[in-house]
């Protein structure tokens, strides 16, 4: 199920997403400033979100055949 390069990339992205959206990496944005006129914390959340979507899109669209687990598995 989780074999294959694309699947491993997705798992890695999932772990990265969890790390970025939780303690302690979230605390990096604990500054009361405006960046480009936007409050830092909400801006950071949206930017991380957008980056995750972009990477996910690249992973999913680039590999034309992520199937992998279609081939017969080990004999049970």
């Amino acid at each position: 199920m989780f074999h294959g390069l694309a699947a491993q990339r997705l798992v890695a992205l999932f772990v990265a997403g969890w790390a970025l959206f939780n303690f302690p990496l979230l605390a990096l944005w604990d500054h009361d400033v405006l960046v480009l006129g936007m409050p830092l914390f909400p801006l950071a959340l949206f930017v991380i979100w957008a980056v995750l979507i972009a990477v996910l899109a690249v992973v999913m669209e680039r590999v034309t055949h992520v199937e992998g687990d279609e081939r017969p598995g080990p004999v049970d």
Partner: protein
Amino acid sequence: MLSAPLVIGVSFAYLLLLFAVAYWGDARAAAGRSVIGSPWVYALSMAVYCTAWTYFGSVGRAANSGVWFLPIYLGPMLAMVLAWMVVRKMIRIATTYRITSIADFIASRYGKSPTLAGLVTLITVVGIVPYIALQLKGIASGYAVLTSPLGAPAVQTPSWWQDSTLYVALALAGFTMVFGARHLDSTERHEGMVAAIAFESVVKLAAFLAVGLFVSFGLFSSPMALFEQAQAVDELRRLLQFGQGQPFAYAQWLGLTLLAMLSVIFLPRQFQVMVVENVNEQHLRRAVWAFPLYLLLINLFVLPIAIGGLLHFGPGTMNPETFVLSLPLSQGFHLLALFAFVGGLSAATGMVIVEAIAVSTMVCNDLVMPLLLRTRRFGTRASGDLTGLLLLIRRLTILGLLLLGYLYFHLAGEAYALVSIGLISFAAVAQFAPAMLGGMYWKGGTRSGALSGLLLGFAFWVYTLMLPSLAKSGWLDADFLHHGPWGLVWLKPEAFLGLGGLDSLTHSLFWSLLANVGAYVGVSLWRAPSARETSQALLFVDVFHRKAGTRPVFWQGRAKVSALLPLAGRFLGAEQAQRLFEDYAARVGVASIEQIPADAQLVQFVETLLTGAIGSASARVMVASVVEEEALDLDDVMRILDEASQLRAYSHALEEKSQSLERATDELRHANEKLKSLDRLKDDFMSSVTHELRTPLTSIRALSELMRDDDDMDLPQRQQFLGIIVAEAERLSRLVNQVLDMAKIESGHAEWHEATVDMRELVEQAAQSVGGSFREAGVSLALELPARVEPLRADADRITQVVLNLLSNALKYAPRGSGRVVLRLVDQADGVQVEVSDNGPGIPPGQQDMVFEKFRQVSGDDHYRPGGTGLGLPISRQIVEHFGGRMWMRSQPGEGALFGFFLPRSPAG
């Protein structure tokens, strides 16, 4: 404010438009030109996740607590990262075994247990009712804001029959019935509905973005200006900060994200659109990123609208949940407000329609049918078409669900914010996660494990979340909240066992999931799975390992086609059943339905068909009632699995054999073609050789005859003829030698005398030996040699032959009198390079490729001097290549030609 008839009229017109879209979608599907066969439509239909909660509630949440509306959308983002693995497996399982609801999924996995199916359905209904109430509340409060003076409290309706919310509920029930319960489909697919949902997703996004743009750029000059102003107000400034002046509640943040992550997969409506309505697994590939993108877009303006509303109206004067409507209204943009309301209506109706359809399927298949089939009238011994009854049950369920939602709204709706209501529902469906995910990846899960996990999790959900919410609405005595039931403080619902420091939602999620997972794993491990559980576990967990033909069928016994066909007819309609059986007959290769072998495959086929119509548990009961079954034990399961594996191995081997056969055929064909072309080459060679032999022979014979017949020929004439004859004979013997030489080299029989060769010496000697003929022809020969050349291993005679050949070629084509030939020797690190260039006519580009072919002489101009055999260059190249070198030529027509070769110092072979 807007007039009530206008708002109602527009709402109904919009619902009619939706119905038109659905109708069009169904018509296109019937015509075989599906409109939902696109990953974009699939992604948009997944956006049914965004309900009135997103539309109205997020702004309210943002106005109260800043970015805390976001985890509900970050969770789905993370879930979608893994969807390609997890959701695709769910889709594969559901399509393979015709599973049409979450209840059926769980029940089917744990041995087609009716109890489990019923429990899951019950949890769903209880859990989802608040969520439906939320939609009704969203529409009702939106309607109130539009039709009453701005800022005025909504008018309390005196009696229930004047309550507009009731009519909203009834209207939605009617529409849902028309959408989803018009006719029966054994796969529970509703193409028209999906088209309408996708359309609604576009409308709600457009409407919300329109309001967002209006607030950000109309009401305020830019988002920057908006945030600038917010910074000046202390209260708003804090909203935009990280911890809002307090320690950041990481546990709650994580809890919400996890909750949303589970909900986006296990909410009945999400399961419906993502799994049941999926037409092609590959659509998931794009949807997994397009859907989060949709979520990002629809959340982009939540903060600006919330902050803008607070700035505009001042905190506390207006319900933030209605900012989407009240902000445009306050500026007199009535049309925009109406559009925003239609967007909210889209969000709410989309959710209600899909949720109600999904839940009605569950209630009908997994709650009502099993009970009905136990009665004498509809039971296993009865006959008669039940399709009408099935539809009726579903319609009544839809109506009942909406009325329950209305009731909840009436009882508890006013006390709670939209978001809090929604979260209660989320926490309920999250209880399905352990049984579902465990069932998909772990073969050891059992029915009792799933049952106890679900029961315990649900119990904790009721106790720690549902009851407190009712108590807070004033429908229960709130005393047990503060002091625990019967005064037992450690049983306090919101601080169970004294666990404090968590908000009530995270607290409930923690305890319910802990109990759920603990009981599921613990009880599952208590005893080994039964035969039926094992067989279903194998089918689910290994769904990707098998192709359709080689799936094991865990059934043994005796069956009759004449019993199975009427059974299918009862639940699918006689005609439909007849058609499906005819298809099946064609698939197994028999002429008529009567000839279908009544084997395990057929029983499996019928059971799968019925599963689509009445759920796996009921299908099991019904099939068992018309066939003679033998109970399977664990050994049987293993034996059947073994046979299936062998079958798979055989088919795999067969496939490999046929592939290798194909490869062999291909190779043979290639070999044959090669042989043919070699044969053609040989023929060409023979004809060329004979042609070349004939030319000198002809002249020798002609001249000899002349001399024989003419006795009076004078001596000088005779001498001249004899000279020509000798020359032609020499050419002939040279030709024969070369042909022999060529044949020897090509066949590998040539003798090679390898020795250490000094190339400088060799080249000098060759130049000396042809020096005479060069002088005679008036062609200069210049040597460019390095002082010393590292020796190399080669056959000196053969290399000399090559150099002589190149020199005589150059001489042949160099102009008489003014000819200039340069022989250049270059010593390189890995070998020696020899080049011979002339200033002759050169070789036309068209003929350059042919110079190394046998019997080719560059012809067609005045300088053509016959005398060569056309074998010199091919032989030379063979020799050079024998020593691992290569030969080449460069030429510009009119500027001479350059022939060169390279010999490596260590022959490569």
